């Protein structure tokens, strides 16, 4: 099997799929040219991620990574969501094939992009270092 049972579970039964109309923060990363785009919607109440939804265009591991990432940040303080790493997503999924690691990086970045959007919209100050691009893809850079 290419993927772990966990990956297949999150791929075939993704958690938190959908959109949030009045989201407090929306993050979209990736590029259709590369074959994956992730979009994450956050509803934030008192600094806590009250609700989170995602939509993803991509392979099985991209969908599973988004699903897992949303599950890992739901109900957590925003500051904690920012600490989510792609490594933690990979571990929670019981591993990803080497050439699919970038999917977990995208998930981390989508969460961060959504938080950044929330900060920007609400005039909350932050350290730009927190939001530096991690994944490198020759197409996305275009």
């Amino acid at each position, binding site marked *: 099997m290419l*993927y772990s049972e966990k990956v*297949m579970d999150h*791929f*075939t039964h*993704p958690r938190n*799929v959908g*959109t949030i109309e009045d989201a407090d923060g929306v993050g*979209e990363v990736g590029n*259709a*040219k*590369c*074959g*994956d*785009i*992730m*979009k994450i919607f956050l509803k934030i109440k008192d600094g806590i991620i009250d609700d989170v939804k995602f*939509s*993803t*265009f*991509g*392979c*099985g591991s*991209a*969908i599973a990574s988004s699903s897992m990432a949303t599950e890992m940040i739901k109900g957590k303080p925003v500051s904690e969501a920012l600490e989510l790493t792609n490594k933690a997503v990979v571990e929670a999924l019981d591993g990803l094939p080497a*050439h*699919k690691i970038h999917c977990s990086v995208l998930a981390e970045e989508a969460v961060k992009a959504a938080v950044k959007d929330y900060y920007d919209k609400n005039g909350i100050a932050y350290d730009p270092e927190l939001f530096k691009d991690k994944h490198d*893809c*020759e*197409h996305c850079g275009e």
Partner: protein
Amino acid sequence: MNTIYADNAATTKISKTALAAMLPCFEENYGNPSSLHTVGQNAAEALFNARRTVAECLGCDPKEIIFTGGGSEADNQALLTGAELGARKGKKHIISDAIEHHAVLHSLKRLEKLGYEVTLLPVNGEGFVDPEDVRKAIRPDTALVTIMMANNEIGTIEPIKEIAEICHEKGVLFHTDAVQAVGHIPVNVKEIGCDMLSLAGHKFHGPKGVGALYARKGLLVSTLIEGGAQERGKRAGTENIPGIVGMAAALKEATDNLEANMAKITKLRDRLIEGLSVIPHSILNGPRDKRLPGNVNMCFEGIEGESLLLLLDQKGICASSGSACTSGSLDPSHVLLAIGRIHDVAHGSLRLSLCESNTEEEIETIIKAVPEVVDYLRRISPVWQDLQEGKRTYVIQ
């Protein structure tokens, strides 16, 4: 859950006839054809008969058949042969096209490193090479033209007879990779007029890891594998007798049933194309006619192919995709890009390849399953949302 195998362009199930022909080569007729004793000579006879069978099916002399370890090896050997024969006359230019199999394209890359110059002709939107482009590309220093007979991804059947004629007119060697064609459409090397042709057993219900190179009599074939004098010194190594015998049996069976199989599979294919074409924003890749009987290849906008494959697999349907994710590279299929599909769309491709054992019932199951999966993936796709909301424009109408 019944498995529906619709990935016959990747490989096929071995036929009962081929398997039955192979088994004695393991159990009783296990000799080495180079041995002079009876056990060895029985194996030599099996090899002789297999070669005769393959030659009959292709319309050539048994001496013109070299057994190889598969389609890739035959392609490698053909290209090396063309290159080395050219180099003797100071000719170091090779012509091919953009949608060849990697067995050809990567061999060409190697030849480029060795100082050869390669012209890769473009194909049109349906994957056809224009024979006039071949004519125009031929130079005084052209050593070889290699154009596939049928494309493995989109099923386009190339006008190789015309191309072979042009090559002969100009005195240039012509090779064709017929790995996807042999056993599926009529292939007669003399009618085609090719100098070399590659085939692989596992694409027509024979075993894997065995193939053949047809090389016209009088052509000095280069060796890839040095060693013993097997295959008239052109391919060393103790022959894969079970494989060769199985491939010959499978080829004979496919050739004997060619017309009936073609009619049956074409009907299934056309029904499948018709059934899937109702999916909005979908497009057929490759031509409607002059297409391999079993090949269906479509792109669905707004989704990615690997997830499509995995979900179809969950429903018991085995297919393939030209998405980058399935190839492990960054780019989607070079074939889809060459026919003008942009990256975004090429990622959403699906190939279904049929054989004579697929049933009408299976086709209807696929026709029901694919739209469900496409619809599901579109519902969770931000690209599809953008398309629907007009934030992105449809590429496929």
